[in-house]
């Protein structure tokens, strides 16, 4: 491996890392919002919205991100809806992640014994109060491992962004290989930069997981 080549490529990889993280975090934030909203809809069994949420989950969980991005980026402009590649990336990631987040949070909600809802209601709390102050905090703490797995999954999914011309880590590597054919150096940096991005998330995750355990009640 040639150290000088590695050094000259690092700034490009750094830009790609920032872009990947920028899109990644915005997408993850969107997916968490969608996840919470969707899980609440399913929890309260709101008539029409419940059906829509169900369809949304099935569509986005059962199609690859690549197909979703293709659709948003290449098909929507044909009918006059124009969005930038970055927005498209955030939207694609957020919508895909949302479907997964809903299911993860829902499993957390369902793991809370019904007796807690009944107790809260019998104490005079409203349905909404019960959900926000009693059920949701516990459900979130139960679903933290699943949510973290989703976050890492979504950050890795950014590697398909190359099809919509976003210079993410994967595309930067492929592009440099195509231009200068320094395969080993490029792939080495690719692995290193993915680890730089994901290891802290994984470590931070285990800390958060520990902390959140205190949120549980009754064990």
């Amino acid at each position, binding site marked *: 491996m040639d150290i000088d080549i590695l050094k000259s490529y690092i700034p490009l990889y750094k830009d790609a890392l920032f872009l990947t993280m920028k899109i990644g975090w915005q997408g993850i934030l969107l997916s968490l919002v969608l996840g919470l909203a969707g899980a609440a809809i399913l929890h309260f069994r709101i008539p029409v919205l419940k059906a829509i949420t169900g369809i949304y989950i099935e569509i986005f969980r059962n199609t690859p991100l690549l197909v979703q991005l293709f659709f948003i980026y290449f098909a929507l*402009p044909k009918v006059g809806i124009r969005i930038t590649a970055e927005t498209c990336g955030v939207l694609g990631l957020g919508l895909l992640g949302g479907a997964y987040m809903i299911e993860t949070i829902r499993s957390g909600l369902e793991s809370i014994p019904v007796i807690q809802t009944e107790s809260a209601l019998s104490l005079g709390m409203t349905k909404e109060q019960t959900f926000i102050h009693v059920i949701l905090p516990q459900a979130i703490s139960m679903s933290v491992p699943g949510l973290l797995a989703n976050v890492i999954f979504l950050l890795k999914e950014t590697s398909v962004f*190359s099809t919509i*011309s976003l210079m993410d880590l994967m*595309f930067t590597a492929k592009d440099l290989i195509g231009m200068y*054919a320094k395969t*080993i150096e490029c792939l080495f940096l690719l692995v290193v930069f993915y680890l730089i991005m994901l290891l802290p998330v994984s470590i931070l995750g285990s800390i958060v997981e520990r902390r959140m355990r205190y949120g549980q009640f009754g064990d």
Partner: protein
Amino acid sequence: MRNKLLRRLSSGLLITAVVAASFTACGSKEDAGATTETASAESNEDSTSDASSSAGFRTLDEIKESGTINIGVFSDKSPFGYVDENGEYAGYDVYFAERIGKDLGVEINYVSTEAANRIEYLQTGKVDIILANFTVTEERAEEVDFALPYMNVALGVVSPSDAVIESLDDIGADDQVIVISGTTAETYLTKNYPDIKLQKYDAYAEAKTAFENGNGVAWANDNTEVIAFSLENEGYTVGIPSLGDNDTIAPAVTKGNETLLTWLNDEITSLGDEQFFHADYEATLLDTYGADYEDTLVVEGGKVQ
């Protein structure tokens, strides 16, 4: 808790170290192979007949023996290498590939390539020959061996007719130019016009769709390709028909595969006697370009006029 964290951290570091070590090992092995031929000859004593396969390519004899040749072509670059309505490979490059198969007396296994992985496919031995509109450049010649050329090419820039780009200076600071990753257009613009913002795509099909959708002010590529695009799609004009140096397109083989390279050079030279590439042009490119471009594009017998 701290123990668990420490364990997690150290395992992470370990992974990084292992990955780094394995890459370094790969790298040094390749260097050694390239610089010290004598050493590799010695280590090959046990497997004398296997010398070529360890170098990552198949010699002419091995290809003939196996009965099939792997040729890397484009599947989405009409009219040079594409899949036609019957699902068969067709185009200027493929016409030549068919002849290679016939003269070698072997079956052809077409491998679809993208611009950016053509060198990789040769270096890893996934294909024996690349016939995918591969422009000869100095950088590439360090990685693969080019045979004699069979086509001329320069770069060109196409843009919508209502906002034609006739000079690269017309491109504004916020405008984006579409290129395909791994092409000579990308390298040329990166090197000579670092301020122009490039919007890069993996494949021809995606770049075309993006350009049609208006994602960039212009599309820079081989001039053959952009001329074909403007002829096939209304409302587009090639504002810059020739950019940079005039280059040639040639078949490429894995570096060091001399038997196959020699055979290809002899083949191209002898095909010149029967004006093979003019016939190729008339069979595959005439519909797109008309007769005007025949003499500028075709290189016969490996000799550039």
